[in-house]
């Protein structure tokens, strides 16, 4: 009952934000998989073409089945988002459409290409020649990555708006190209694209590690795990570099957000980097954190004595909710570091054993891979929370507040709840279908080995 009271009391702005957040949180998983899975599939298919080893073809086909399900959910939830931008934030779209509609339009085309070639890839195994089929897969992988990049460019513009001048509250001298080249665009797109590969690679590797632990002899799971782990691992090792570049860009364009990342309340020279800790906004301090002296100044500005602006230097009505941002940031970084370590361990194991067959034979190694499977997606979700909540109360940093952008439509809690129920339902079915795919993978293979 109290939950009901809560929803009834929910105001429309909160409902709109919740609906957007929920839709994005849902879509981002499928989007990330849509970016990375095609890469895994074409690597498997390419290995098949080169080695003529049927096991790789089986892997590509199994992955393609899973991808088909996930892609469909991703496609429809992406459609919902493109409408929701207008349904929930009409003022924002009316204002910003001319400036940042461009990357969205390009995304439309990239997604179109992706959908066309995915159709060929999924249903054309027998209809086109192997080379053409591999080419279709490569087109899916490239256009998938591009469509992700375009969407993140639009988001980066919300963080670092450029390409127009404000005159009497209206944008003039609009330059969509300059808007796309905004200072946050490069590091943000790099960070998100790597995140998609790392998260998906680790999740897939984890699933195969789980199956391999149950069936140690399976060549199928061994080969699949290797491909997924290489893609995920390389991305996870590169990711901290892109994270560093992004942090420096945030320090320049959104100092208040950086302060929230770190729970930094006071402006400080030679600021320390905090690990953990609970920010107390009323008191203006972050408790229980491990502090590494000077590191924040180094990370943000490349200079141990650089001044890091604290939250107290910003008006209270321009600060994001510090606790959510700080804690999400900590979780994201923690997951990222853990994945990097796992990736390094895997690389070490692989390089050390000259007999390459044994590197997957450790029970503990497989267990760690299983445990690391969800880390990437946890990092993706919390990272998204960091950048979105960290921008609040603005929808366009420094230009338009989220509360100004929301639709005048009353009763927004109704669509919020409807979509939440709908998405939970979809998520449950997707998980169930994928689970069945994985289980059937295993049982058919067992039959094969028995026979």
């Amino acid at each position: 009952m109290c939950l009901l009271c809560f929803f009834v009391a929910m105001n429309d702005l909160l409902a709109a934000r919740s609906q957007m957040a929920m839709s994005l949180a849902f879509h981002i998983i499928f989007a990330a998989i849509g970016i990375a899975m095609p890469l895994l599939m074409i690597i498997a298919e390419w290995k098949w073409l080169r080695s003529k080893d049927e096991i790789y073809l089986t892997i590509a086909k199994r992955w393609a089945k899973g991808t088909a399900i996930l892609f469909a959910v991703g496609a429809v939830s992406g459609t919902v988002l493109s409408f929701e931008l207008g349904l929930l934030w009409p003022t924002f779209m009316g204002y910003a459409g001319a400036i940042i509609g461009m990357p969205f339009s390009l995304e439309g085309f990239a997604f179109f290409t992706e959908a066309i070639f995915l159709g060929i890839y999924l249903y054309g195994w027998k209809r086109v020649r192997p080379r053409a089929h591999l080419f279709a897969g490569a087109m899916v992988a490239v256009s998938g990555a591009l469509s992700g990049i375009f969407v993140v460019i639009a988001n980066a513009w919300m963080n670092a708006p450029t390409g127009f001048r404000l005159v009497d509250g209206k944008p003039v001298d609009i330059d969509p190209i300059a808007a796309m080249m905004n200072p946050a665009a490069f590091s943000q797109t790099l960070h998100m694209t790597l995140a998609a590969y790392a998260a998906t690679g680790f999740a897939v590797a984890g699933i195969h590690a789980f199956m391999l632990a149950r069936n140690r002899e399976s060549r199928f799971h061994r080969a699949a795990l290797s491909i997924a782990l290489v893609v995920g691992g390389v991305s996870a090792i590169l990711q901290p570099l892109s994270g560093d570049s992004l942090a420096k860009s945030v320090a320049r364009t959104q100092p208040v957000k950086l302060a929230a990342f770190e729970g930094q309340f006071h402006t400080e020279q030679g600021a320390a980097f905090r690990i953990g800790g609970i920010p107390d906004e009323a008191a203006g301090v972050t408790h229980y954190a491990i502090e590494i002296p000077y590191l924040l100044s180094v990370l943000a500005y490349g200079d141990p004595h650089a001044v890091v602006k604290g939250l107290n230097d910003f008006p209270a009505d321009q600060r994001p909710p510090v606790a959510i941002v700080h804690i999400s940031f900590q979780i994201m970084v923690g997951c990222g570091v853990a994945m990097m370590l796992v990736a390094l361990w895997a690389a070490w194991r692989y390089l050390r054993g000259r007999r390459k067959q044994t590197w997957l034979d450790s029970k503990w190694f497989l267990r760690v891979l299983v445990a690391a499977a969800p880390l990437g997606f946890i990092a993706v979700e919390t990272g998204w929370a960091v950048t979105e909540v960290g921008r609040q109360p603005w929808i366009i940093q420094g230009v338009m507040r989220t509360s100004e952008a929301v639709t005048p439509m009353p009763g927004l809690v109704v669509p919020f709840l409807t979509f939440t129920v709908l998405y939970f339902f979809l998520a449950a079915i997707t998980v169930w279908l994928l689970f069945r795919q994985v289980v059937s993978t295993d049982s058919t293979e067992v039959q094969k080995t028995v026979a």
Partner: protein
Amino acid sequence: MIASLVLYALLGGADYGGGVWDLFAFGRRARQQRSLIAEALSPVWEANHVWLILVIVILFTAFPPAFAAIATALHIPITLLLIGIVLRGTAFTFRTYDVQRDDVQRRWSIVFSSASIITPILLGTTLGAIASGTITVADGKVTSGFFNSWLAPFPIAVGCFALALFAFLAAVYLTLETPQRELQEDFRRRALVSGVVVGLLALTVFLLAKTGAPTVRAGISRTVWALGLHFFTAVFALSAFYTLWTRRYRLARLFAAAQVTMILLGWAFAQYPHLVEPHITITSAAAPRITLELLLGALVAGAILLFPSYYYLFVIFKAKTSK
């Protein structure tokens, strides 16, 4: 201005594509022909579906205020439309990959087909409301409320018209998807019946437009151009019917597609120069020139890239049955 005119033509084109190809996916209530439909749909529905996304992004890039007004006034039908889209697409995919047991399959089919019926009605309703001239805007704010514009006889009639039209087209196309005579006959009958329904509903829409959308109705008979378009619509409709009757399915497909194109073009012309009747015109809602030029460039480049791919997709999956 010229750029925005060309753009409008392209928008109309995309609109038409969205209509034609989505309906392709807006499958039908057929029972025994289900597997044929599934086979025809599965490789292409996602690509067809993207037309709709393209229309939306072009609308909000090129005409941001119009998008804002539409999204505000028609929040409710568009939200319902979205739910329909989500259910249709996912139910279709889930059906393919779920247990191949009859009861499970039937459950997904019910979701898929009922969402396929509701979604076009809502799509038509939305378009009807845009045309009806009841979305009023003052000072950048929508003043006509959240229900008035679409809960009216005219938009709902347009919704039913859209459904009948989609069903008609799908049936015509499906005659070409199978070499089996009986299945062809099934879909031929369905096409003929839905064709008659389309005609009746078109008449209903036209009559309701007298009160429901007076400016558009006036636009229909305003210029020689518009009249010409309607003349061709009628010619194509009758030809489609005739070729169906005489079982020349390839011609029928051509005429049916042309008929739908003409209907959409006719609508666009009747509404011109308004984007959202009666307050938002193309010029008042257009984004700055540079955005339009870049968008136009992107559209051309995208089209050069896309159409061969799209064509390739269809050649791969549709060539076999047409022979």
